[in-house]
Structure formats: C-alpha cells, structure tokens
C-alpha cells in the first residue's frame, strides 16, 4: 500500500514539474455566421503554472485582408474623401488581453520583438514611397480600428476581462462583433515571467458562413449572371403575384 502511494505521489509530482505548459480550451471553437448571426460571445479558459507577478497574454488574430483609410477634406462646402492609404495583410480583427493593466517594460519588449499586440503590427502600405507621413496614417488607422472595435485591447483582471484564480486558472470572454469576416482566427496564449517566455499555447477559432446566407453569398459571387437573372425573375414573379393576389380584394 505504501508503495502504491509513493508511485501515485511520484506521478503527481512529475506531472506538476512538467505542468509549466498552458492547457486551454474554448467554450466554442467554431462560429457559424448563419441567418440569425448577430455577433458571438465565447470563453477561453484553461490552466497555467504562474507565480505572483507573472504576465498572461491572449491574442486573437482574425483573417488578414486589405484595408483602406480615407481622410475627408472640406472642399467647396462639402466633406469629401480626399486622401487614402491602403494597407496590405491587415488583421481584420485583433483581440488582445493583458492580465495586468501595467505591463513591465521587459514584457512589452518581448511583445514588440515578436510583433504581438495590435500596436506592434507591421502595417505595410501598398505604395509606401508615395507617403512621407506614413506614420501619422498608421496611427490614425490604429486608433480607428480600435474605435470601430475591430481591434480590441483589454488590460487587467475583472469582469468582462480576464479572470485569474491562484495564478493557475484563467477565464476570458471573447466577443466577436457581427461584422467579423469568415476565416480562421489564431488564438495565442502567452505566459511571461520578467519578460521571459515560460510557455505558450496556440489554438484556433473557425468562423464560417453557413446556412442559406452563405449559399446566397456564394451564388451571388460565383454565378453572378444566374444570380442577376434569378433576382429579376423573383421580382417579376413577386410583382405579378401581388397584382393578381390583390385584384380580387
């Protein structure tokens, strides 16, 4: 009996010593944009082996796409989009969760070196030689993406932010707005101590269009000629039906 206990204890301690890695899961890792879709809320939760003062970061990066920022100018009495800059490979969605509201400079340094967090993204303009004040444009772009809640950063612990228990368990809400693009969302959970990586874990959220809506969308884009004809036939039929249906009333 004693032997057995020792065996169990040794297994337990071995596990503890290797338990530096993060174990995480999502309450829902496949989001369907269907007819009733109006955004989604899910939870990311798991365990890590932390100490007081450690940093835990979560980054969720949406599909990359092209994005254009327009600047309006007052021209002969009206506001017109005048200048614009188009950036390539911009994450359409970027969600950052910081476990601390004040992150040490060492940790910030690590994030900067690894291009993590929306402010550390390298934005590349389509024709960089054209703009002298590209940094100003990038700053404006960054702040508008945040304002539109496409890039979100939540710092500190608490409700609607990350919740941490005993430096071991964590739980964070992830809110995807109704405007999210379909695609794979890369989730990275990062555990830092004094700016050094202790462990990281990567997972994905799959966002896809499903149901009638996605069929209509691909119909419209892949068979646009038939779609156009279909739309007209539908309208003619509806109009005819309305005329005939209400004639007898």
């Amino acid at each position, binding site marked *: 009996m004693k032997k057995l206990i020792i065996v169990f204890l040794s297994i337990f301690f071995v596990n503890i010593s290797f338990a530096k890695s993060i174990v995480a899961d999502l309450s829902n890792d496949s989001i369907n944009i269907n007819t009733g879709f109006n955004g989604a809320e899910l939870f990311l939760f798991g365990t890590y082996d932390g100490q007081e003062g450690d940093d835990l970061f979560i980054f969720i990066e949406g599909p990359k796409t092209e994005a254009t920022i327009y600047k309006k100018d007052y021209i002969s009495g009206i506001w017109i989009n005048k200048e614009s800059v188009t950036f390539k490979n911009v994450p359409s969605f970027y969600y950052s969760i910081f476990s601390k509201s004040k992150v040490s400079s060492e940790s910030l340094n690590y994030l900067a070196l690894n291009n993590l967090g929306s402010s550390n993204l390298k934005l590349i303009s389509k024709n960089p030689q054209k703009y002298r004040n590209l940094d100003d444009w990038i700053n404006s772009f960054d702040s508008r993406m945040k304002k539109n809640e496409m890039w979100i950063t939540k710092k500190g612990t608490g409700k609607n932010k990350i919740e941490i228990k005993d430096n071991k368990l964590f739980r964070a809400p992830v809110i995807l707005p109704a405007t999210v693009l379909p695609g794979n969302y890369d989730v990275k959970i990062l555990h830092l101590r004094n700016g050094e990586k202790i462990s990281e874990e990567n997972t994905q959220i799959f966002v896809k269009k499903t149901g009638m809506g996605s069929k209509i969308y691909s119909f419209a884009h892949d068979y*646009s000629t038939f779609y156009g004809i279909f739309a007209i036939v539908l309208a003619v039929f509806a109009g005819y039906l309305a005329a*005939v249906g209400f004639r007898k009333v």
Partner: protein
Amino acid sequence: MYIYLPIAEVSMNVFAITGLGGMVGFLSGLFGVGGGFLMTPLLIFLGIPAAVAVSTEANQIVASSVSGVLAHWRKRNVDFTMGFILLIGGLIGSSFGVWLFAFLKTIGQIELVIRLAYVVFLGLIGFLMAWESSKAILKSRTPGASRGKLHQHNWLHGLPFKIRFRRSKLYISALLPLFIGAFVGMLSAIMGVGGGFILVPAMIYVLGMPTAVVVGTSLFQIIFVTANVTFLQSITTQTVDIVLAGLLMIGGVIGAQIGSNASSLLRGEQLRGLLALLVLAVCFKLFMDLTLTPEDIFSIEIKR
C-alpha cells in the same frame, strides 16, 4: 428578430426592414409614386451600405413596377412605341450608370455621389411638391382658376427622326424620349430609383404626352431599366441582396394596398404637402451629413 443579410453583410431587425418597406409602400399606394427615392436613403440611414441599398432597391422596383403596370396594361394605358424608345435610352443610360457606379466604388467616392445626387433631386422634387400642394390648397379656396394649354410644341420636338406615337397622339423627334430615357436610366443606376419622379414630369411637360398614358408607359420602361440595373449590378459589383429585396417587397406590397385603399378616404393636397415635408427632411439630413464637420474625418474600409 434579427436577420443576417448575406450580401449587405450586416445584421438587421426583420421588422425594421419590412416596416420600412410597408411605410414606403403605403406612401407609394397613397400618392402613386414609386418610393425608391425615399427607400434608398432610408436604407442608408438604417446602416445598409449605400452600394447595396441602391442595387437592391433597383431589384425591388422591378417587382413594384410589374404589379403596377398590369393594371395600366388592362386599361390599355401603355404607349409601347414611346415605351420602347424611352427603354432604348434607358438601357444605354443605365448601363453607363452601372459602369460609372463600379468606377466610383473602386475610387471610394460612391457614397458621396449617391448622397449628392439625393440631396439635389430630393431637394428639387420636395420643393416642387411643396409648391404645387400649397398652390392646390390655395386654389381650392379660390374658385374659377384658369386652365393652361394642354401641350405646346417647341424646337425640341422638331429635332430629326420624327416618329408618330399613336397612343400619345404625338408626332415628335425620337431623340427627345431617347435622351430622357438615357438620363433617367443613369439616375436609376446610381440612385437606385425607378426614376418616375423625373420621367413622369418630363413626359408631361417636355414630351407633351397625355396624362392618362404617362404612368403606365413610365412603369413599362422602369421595369426593364431597373431589371437591367439589377442584372448589371449583380455581375459587376455583386451588391444585389435578394434577402433584403424580398423583405422590402413583402412590406411594400402590403403597404401599397393599404395606401391605395386609404387614398380615397384622405384629403390629397394636405397629404401631398406632408410627403413634400418628409422628402425635404430626408434631403436636409443628407445635406447636413455632407456639410457639417464630421465627427471623425477618417473612415476605414475593410475589403471583405
């Protein structure tokens, strides 16, 4: 109850959309106007992307014009010769309009052009309607007002390629309806309207057509022009949302029936005055959006 519109890619309340369709349909039934000129800006106010609002509204107008033209066809109030010539112009104009639309979309100016076009035309028709209804209200109080001439010939009617339009009892140049059709067709593509609000007065005052055949003939032309816009927008910009169009059609059909029944019960001039005020209010809102300093001079567009 929310529905995710597949082409507009926004989530909208079903009742807000059918309600809007019903409200505009009610006004259409009440006044015999198409309603596209109100529907498109209201859809934009609701948060539908302007490009989708325009193309989808063109699709809905196909339906409302089909249901409208059948009644006129039965009464033989369609001048097909005139309709065909207006239509040829309309097809040319609307095809050019869709091309222009796609071009403006790529350079990021389509919202501006749509809004500007609305400010100009809503302002114009709102003002004319307000003027006319106030005149009508005054006239009903002063009996014995004189009648004007039915129609006058001017130099425009004498341009080459004269054609006889039997049902309209006209012998005028075909270039004139061709040009009018083309102009209205272009507006149809850019603004998502049938264009009846330009076409009807143009047919009466410029072409000199008898009022009885004007509405039927314009509806006949509008069906094909908006169908052309629907088709071309589908293949060039993919901005026709059939789910949105379907919801608007449902609301529109019901609203139009209630409206046409109500029209016999209500006083015309005052209501026309109210419609004028509504049109001017929408115009004013669009105008202010363009001229007031925006909350944020930057805007972002994400390629989907």
